[in-house]
């Protein structure tokens, strides 16, 4: 890549930082230059977030239909998988799997609900009702 070809597209890093790219100058010598972003990778990141939003929407529908508990929705919201949620809550993965069932979740003691709420950074009421700002 030639230094003059380093893309200067808009990215989500606008106003945060520019990033360093390595490229060759007109004499073939390596140099570094700042880039504000590259459309190709901004789009890749958008694909990842579109997928996350899609997963959240699906999870929300399933919770509302009573197929699973709000934990499933909040895991998507916080980009967590079972292993990550288990280590943040200190619960076993099999316990969380049980709590993902609506029936089990509805009978959980407030203390356990609070544990999840803390990790998801919401109140217990928000956890039960899925009332969060999705942005």
């Amino acid at each position, binding site marked *: *890549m030639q230094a003059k070809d380093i893309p200067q597209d808009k990215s989500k*890093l606008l106003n945060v930082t520019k990033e360093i790219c390595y490229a060759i100058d007109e004499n*073939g010598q390596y140099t570094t230059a700042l880039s504000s972003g590259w459309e190709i990778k901004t*789009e890749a990141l958008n694909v990842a977030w579109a997928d996350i939003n899609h997963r959240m929407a699906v999870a929300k529908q399933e919770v509302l239909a009573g197929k699973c508990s709000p934990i499933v929705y909040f895991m998507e919201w916080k980009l967590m998988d079972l292993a990550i949620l288990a280590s943040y809550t200190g619960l076993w993965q099999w316990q969380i799997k049980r709590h993902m069932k609506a029936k089990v979740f509805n009978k959980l003691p407030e203390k356990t609900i609070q544990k999840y709420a803390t990790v998801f950074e919401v109140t217990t009421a928000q956890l039960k009702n899925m009332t969060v700002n999705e942005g």
Partner: protein
Amino acid sequence: MKVNFRHIQAAHCENGVTTNLLQHNGVSQMTEPLAFGIGSGLFYIHIPFLKINHGPAIAFRTLPGLIFKRTCKALDIPIASKTFSSIDSAENELTKVLAAGKPVGCQVGVYYLSYFPKEYRFHFNAHNLIVYGKEQDTYLISDPVMERVTTLSSFELNRVRFAKGALAPKGQLYYPRANKIITDDDIRRGIVSGIKRNVRDMLRIPGSFVGVSGIKGTGLKIKKWRDTLGLEKSKIYLAQLVRMQEEIGTGGGGFRFIYAAFLQQAHQYLPHDELLHISKQFTQAGDIWRQAAVQAAGIYKGRIEKQEEFNLMCDYLQQAAAVEKQAFLHLDKIKWKK
């Protein structure tokens, strides 16, 4: 307390931490490409079966932590590296080292890293930064991928040092134990050992998921994605490949350009003219990776979707693999003078 510390921006976090810490400790020759090359940073792995964020687990660089450790070891610089079982002991140790006037490298998770934009915050635990001071409750932070220094409250720093999940940092901190004057001969030895190890890592690890054969393997897999995963999922997979290759911290072209820069710098220490030629091959490999990214983007943006386009993706990766294989074979043939 504040250590007198110069922040130098880098493309990649661990290269940057290594360069900045070593420069601070008297190794004035250290640059990002040298740290990357001596630490044999260039790599490729596509871990089978494992999924990261619902996509393929692909990396273009070696395991986290190795660049710092290998570079220091090659230059015979003693290091301290510790993990902790409690937040308190981790913070105590950090303050102790800062009080002794040393900037400290820390492994952190990105998800709760408050100065990153939300879009970049995934549960990725192999980020590195330098803490160079503390004022009241605020830590002074030099994050090498950022243009300028920044800060974190002690709550925020403790939280990212104890991020959970794969590669959990467990509060890990590291720093060179002592200042050391490094001669150009030391650098020469480091370069040669770094190159030899990188040749081994990219050419001689058996199986079709590591090194040059790993790149070929991914190419062949991509060819089948359209049929086995379906178009929608293929898009997500391809986007993930491009993110691993180009996202903040690679210097572009999946670190291939940094490696090409390393070989040019190596030539200043070891005047083997082949190095300049091989550097061009890595530039070419990086360019092919960039073209592949453009092709992938065509697919994940939904502009192109036929099987031929997936075949073309595969061809790009076969080309990149072929160029890199030649380049490493050439490196392998250099007769280093004693």
